[in-house]
């Protein structure tokens, strides 16, 4: 009988070649945490990994529903995870190291669409290692770097020691603008406290709640900034960045009031159907008219997961929502959301 057991958390480590993914992986594996960790490695890394359970895999992407980009999943991971889940003394954790050029979308979607994978594993977080020294060179000409930053729950701005403080601040600001939802840590040789990268509950609705104060603050900051800096940033882009259209950005919306359930569901439905492939991640806490509970949700591309979590009580009913993706139309999103107010 397949008894319900706790699902095994999976951490995805992305980052451009040479950013320090393997260094981080080795750190996690060698630290004395007493955990049994299986590693799925997609790349013959720059540095060898001395660990018993390293499974090599070739990226095999397939589309579940005839050509829908949002249903792209990783067949190789499904196959490997199915075999790993057979063991009774299962692993405490699984780490997946992607190639520098990997799209995190299909990796993440695998954990929300494949029934067998969902039964045994839970995506805990996407950790992106960024080379602070060279990322400036890749921001504009490498789509994958922007995607990996956009998808991240945690970003390690690595090789801190190799850049000037001014350069560092600039890079960090740019990353925060692309993804204000992620926690950004400065590291040298990917040295980081493991509880900042493992067991972070990046896709867990309950945990999204734990993160709430920071999450709200970040969005509000982002929102405020935005009006002041938008024009300025825009000019800069016009001058330097001819890939502007494809840029990864975030749009945060913070609005008091109650939403109309029907309008909200129509708007979100249409949005995900038409713009889902450009939305990497989203999270939100919403106040729906006639509902005493807050509605929390999170999503990856077109896949959305949401539920009521707790009563608003004395707290002011307020909506907070954040989208991270490419080609996001800030005005349209704001207006669309506003139109959902009851």
């Amino acid at each position, binding site marked *: *009988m*397949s008894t319900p057991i706790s699902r095994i958390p999976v951490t995805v480590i992305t980052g451009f070649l040479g950013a320090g993914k393997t260094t981080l992986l080795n750190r996690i594996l060698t630290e004395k945490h007493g955990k049994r960790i299986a590693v799925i490695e997609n790349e013959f890394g720059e540095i060898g990994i001395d660990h*018993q*359970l*390293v*499974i*090599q*895999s*070739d990226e*095999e992407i*397939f589309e*579940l529903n005839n050509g829908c980009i949002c249903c792209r999943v990783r*067949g*190789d991971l*499904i*196959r490997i995870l199915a*075999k790993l889940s*057979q*063991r*009774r*003394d299962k692993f405490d954790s699984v780490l997946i190291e992607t190639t520098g050029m990997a799209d995190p979308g299909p990796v993440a979607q695998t954990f929300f669409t*494949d*029934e*067998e994978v969902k039964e045994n594993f839970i995506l805990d977080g996407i950790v992106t290692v960024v080379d602070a020294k060279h990322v400036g060179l890749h921001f504009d000409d490498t789509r994958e770097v922007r995607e990996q930053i956009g998808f991240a729950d945690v970003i390690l701005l690595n090789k801190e020691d190799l850049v000037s403080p001014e350069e560092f601040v600039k890079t960090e600001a740019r990353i925060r603008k692309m993804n204000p939802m992620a926690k950004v840590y400065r590291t040298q040789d990917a040295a980081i406290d493991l509880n900042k990268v493992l067991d972070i509950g990046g896709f867990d609705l309950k945990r999204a709640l734990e993160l709430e104060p920071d999450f709200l603050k970040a969005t509000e900051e982002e929102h405020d900034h935005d009006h002041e800096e938008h024009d300025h940033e825009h000019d800069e882009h016009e001058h330097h960045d001819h890939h502007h259209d494809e840029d990864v950005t975030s749009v945060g919306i913070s609005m008091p009031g109650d939403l109309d359930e029907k309008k909200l569901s129509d708007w979100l439905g249409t949005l995900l159907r038409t713009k889902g492939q450009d939305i990497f991640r989203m999270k939100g806490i919403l106040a729906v008219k006639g509902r005493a509970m807050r509605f929390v949700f999170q999503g990856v591309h077109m896949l959305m997961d949401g539920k009521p979590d707790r009563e608003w009580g004395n707290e002011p009913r307020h909506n907070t929502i954040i989208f991270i993706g490419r080609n996001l139309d800030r005005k349209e999103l704001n207006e669309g959301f506003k139109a959902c107010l009851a």
Partner: protein
Amino acid sequence: MNSNPKLRPIAFKWHSKLNDFMTGLAWSPEGDRIAVASVSGQVAIYDAVEGRTIHLFEKAHEDGCDALAWRPDGKALATAGRDGMWKLWDAETGKVLAEHEAGALWTEHLAWSSRPLGDQGHLLAVGAGNKVTLWNEAGESADETIKFTKTVADVGWILNGTTLAVATSSEVVVDDLIADGEARRFVAKDPILKMSFSPSGKWLMTGNQDCSVHVWNTDNGAEMHMRGYAAKVRQLVWHRGSRWLAAGGGPAISVWDCSGRGPEGRTPTILEWHIDQISALHYQPEGDWLASGARDGSIAVWSPTQRQAQISGAKISSGVTQVAWSPNGKLLAATGEDGEVQMLAVE
């Protein structure tokens, strides 16, 4: 479970237990032994009638054993595992006759040719990663490595017994190693998990990652795609006459009539009795009965003419991972997710 007053009880013969999920179960060609393997790396050989343990190799493969195959003379057993190795064991003495690296950490597939290939005798095909290597009866390399672009999903010998069929996630490649001529390739749209050729060789079916089944008529290349399964179809078994194909992919078994022009346009017979998903199916090698096992641990036997389970009562304490009839069809061996091995008798 549906009540069925006419359900005959199955006779229990013996049982044994290894320590983890059972990944391999194979009858010796003579039907006097069974070999089983577990994901912890244990391999055991039992006397099939009495249940006596003849050999127990605690760590046949570090990190798990995934495949077993008796050499056609029944005197040796090939095993493969997650340590990147395949090994050949003397079934009487228990000694390792040969052991080799197979080319990837997970060595998942083993298949002996059912006919000898000239001087080489029977060949063993070993699938690991995106490679298949060939070995002779003594366990020496036959100097043949076939590389594929994707990971090997399934390996078997079909038709005359010298034709090697290999499924990767994107295609099935069929090559007669004796006859001249190009290999035939059947290119798949959805990633393949499992391949199954009818004994006649006419029909090729694959169970795919997206819960579909794809069918090729190898005579004329016609294809057909079946959707609507509740789960991935990893069980695709043929009745010896090549007419009936039984498939899992949910709690119900679907039996397709493949006579004449094949399953297209036909409605399968649905066999419903198990509660949880089907996890094992096997037709008697020389009879007509179909055995089934499910993730709820239940085991049943079906007659070809009736839609209700005919014999059951057997239950494994965890999910069934494999069922296999003895060559004469009188005994049914079953293995479970918690290491259980059961021998049942069907008279």
